[in-house]
């Protein structure tokens, strides 16, 4: 596995100071009648682990797709790794996509192919011409792919058809495919939304572990507030295509969590009050000692209140 994982010291290297890895400026994107993103701006520094939080339809996926050049904004610019993604075409675009790994909610493995072939697809951008079957790939690449499979704990399944794996296993193959790119940025779109709680925990832990080991910048969209709080370093909340929240997770309390939940779900009129409270949230360590039961109770009453409102 030598050379597969980037040395951790990269995070503390001089590159940290050299500007943001991702810079999104005032992008707006509409699909027909619906506005998916409205005037969204966001900068992410190297090595950050960012969670995009929001309900379905809030624009999380669309924003992530813009970062990989899969969608193009109507107005505004997207700069990733100093490249103007929104204006790239052809080879430069593919080269950039090669440096950005993408993990999907529905895993998106090619079912009839073996697990190993699926992982190797992550190396296609380095090659010219198409590949059919395993013999098209160099031995070093195959060994590297097996290394990544070992990393995600699926080495013994390398030659199995991808559609024979369970959901959690398929998602780990998806991660291995992204790692195969040796990416500098990892994008994950609701990576655990289709998984059971146990697999979810495994997959989220794996992504974080890999991110820290390899010094990756991670942008991951989620819709569970508690998971976002415990997992990410920074939360960006989206609601109906607008950024409504951008805060560090460190020091946030259960109370803040409720507010965040409210913020990404409630209407704009109600936001003002929450805004003032939340602005001071990261500097309020005194609320950390709040008992867990209390928090859970809050969550329950909150959700039932929300149900009543519908």
């Amino acid at each position, binding site marked *: 596995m030598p050379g597969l994982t980037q040395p951790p010291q990269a995070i503390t290297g001089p590159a940290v100071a050299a500007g943001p890895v991702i810079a999104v400026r005032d992008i707006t994107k509409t699909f027909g009648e619906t506005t998916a993103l409205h005037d969204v701006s966001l900068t992410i520094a190297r090595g950050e682990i960012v969670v995009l939080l929001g309900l379905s339809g809030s624009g999380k996926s669309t924003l992530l797709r813009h970062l990989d050049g899969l969608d193009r904004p109507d107005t505004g610019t997207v700069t990733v790794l100093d490249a103007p993604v929104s204006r790239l075409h052809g080879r430069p675009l593919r080269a950039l996509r090669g440096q950005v*790994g993408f993990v999907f909610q529905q895993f*998106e493995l*090619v079912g009839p192919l073996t697990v190993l072939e699926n992982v190797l697809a992550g190396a*296609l951008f380095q090659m010219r011409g198409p590949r059919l079957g395993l013999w098209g790939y160099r031995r070093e690449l195959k060994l590297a792919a097996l290394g990544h499979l070992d990393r995600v704990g699926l*080495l013994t399944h390398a030659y199995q058809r991808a559609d024979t794996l369970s959901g959690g296993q398929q998602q780990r193959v998806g991660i291995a495919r992204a790692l195969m790119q040796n990416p500098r940025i990892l994008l994950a779109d609701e990576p655990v939304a289709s998984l059971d709680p146990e697999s979810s925990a495994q997959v989220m832990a794996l992504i974080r572990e890999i991110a820290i080991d390899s010094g990756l910048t991670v942008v991951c969209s989620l819709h569970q507030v508690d998971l976002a709080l415990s997992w990410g370093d920074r939360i960006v909340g989206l609601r109906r295509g607008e950024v409504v929240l951008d805060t560090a997770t460190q020091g946030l309390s259960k109370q803040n969590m409720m507010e965040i939940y409210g913020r990404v779900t409630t209407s704009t009129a109600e936001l003002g009050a929450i805004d003032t409270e939340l602005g001071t949230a990261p500097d309020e360590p005194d609320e950390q000692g709040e008992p867990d039961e209390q928090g859970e109770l809050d969550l329950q009453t909150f959700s039932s209140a929300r149900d009543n409102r519908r």
Partner: protein
Amino acid sequence: MTLTLERPQPGQADAVALTPRRSQRRARPEKVAAGLTLGVLVTASVVSLISVDISLPHIIASWSNATRFFDRVGVISFPAPGELLYLTALTVGLVLLGTLFAAVFSVPLAWLAAANTSPGRGWMVFARFLGVAIRAVPDVVLAMVFVLMFSLGTLPGILAIGIHSIGMISKMFADAIEQIDDGPRLAIRAAGATRLQEFFSGVLPQVLPSWVATVLHRNDINLRGSVILGYVGVAGLGLEMSYAFKSLNYSLGLGIAVVIFALCVVMEIVSSAVRTVMLGFAPTRHGIGDRLLRRIGVIGVSADASRRPWAYARIRNAVWGALAALIVIGSIWICDIKWGDILTFWSYLPETAAKFWPPSFGSYDAPVMLAAMGETIAIALAATILTLLASIMIGSLAARNVAPNPRVRAGFRLVLVTIRGIPEIILAIVLIVVTGLGTQAGTIALAIGGIGLLGKLLADSLEEVRPGPEQALKAAGATGLQVYAGATAPQGMKALIGHSFYMLDTNIRAATILGLVGGGGVGYYLLNAGQGSRYDLVTTIVLMIFVTVVMVEGLAVWMRRVFR
């Protein structure tokens, strides 16, 4: 209906209730036009049926011809075993290579024609139209042209089958691409792959099983159609049969017909078995390779791990692949292709093209040719309506949710498979030769042959209707027939219209070809023109066929859209 409406004032209720009702009842003008067209077509079919003069007494009378015929011919005879084996292998090999040719050239066309892979909308329309245009030229005509350009041999047949089949195969390939799960393809794009890499890694693995099924299906059709190519000089069983009939050696001719029939049935069984094996393959995760790997445990990244183990699935795939390669090599060997012809034929191209252009009516005048084309269309319409009536009965009983019990369903499914195995053209030839009838025999042959296809399509469509309404009627105490008439049939109606147009489309092409063996219509003139070297007349006839087929295709597309 008025119950669901809000009534602001009691006095206005009726006026409020009536307005939406009237607007609901008023059908779109397009739908009215389509309905009228459908009515006209059905009327035309019935008129055709009468004009072709198919009546029960007529058919019964013709059986006396048949008995007299068999008295004269005696027993049927076959070619010598060695020759028979060679001819059979040659026919199968030729058809296989033709189909393979079509499959290879269909891939780029399908890529252009599929909405999710096409580089642009213009390309998509172009590729789809090219497919329709290719389909509209009968393979017999192509064979005629190629026989002119190449020395007699197998190449004209291979190319004729190959080019004609591209039309259907590319359409089915493109439809398969459009049905894939697009996620994995886009995931590979997100990893920075080129369009070509995306296709090979993301699309091809997903569509391969369905593509192979399509090719096998087309190969069956081509085998059945190859008989007729013999009539224009393509080597194989068809040519031998045409020689036998021309030299009035009826017993040998019928013998070869029986061989072709048996061959088609065997091929149908083999290809459906292969399709089942391939599509039904479900990986078990308990294969030899999997167990071996698991016993070794975590094997670490060693040199051996980079080689794929010979698991059961891999061995099976390799065996199938090797077998397929052997069959292809065998086909090339037996067809004895004169590769030089491919190089030299270009020099004949201008000369040949000059023979075919400009089109003319030759020694006939326009009304005669138009009447002949009209007869062909009448045969197709009459055959389609006969097929439709029979298929509604047989197809319904072959559907799981209509048949009174599984044994009835299995019985009628068997009937359909058997009919599908019979090459229509063989049926037509035998009927024409045996009963001495022309147009009637041709129509009956087409009608019977069509049942195999339309009956199957209808049965499949009926099995796919939503079961909810059926259960609702059953729960309300309806009889089996009431459930069929009240829930199953109405839901299957749209599919029936679509399939019927497909049948008409197929029948017009088939009816053209019937004329070549004495079944009446424009085909007779086509064969005469070809044999009399009046190629300008061939062009005229081909253009007439082309226009008719494209019109029917357009009509079918329109109907499907309106009655969606």
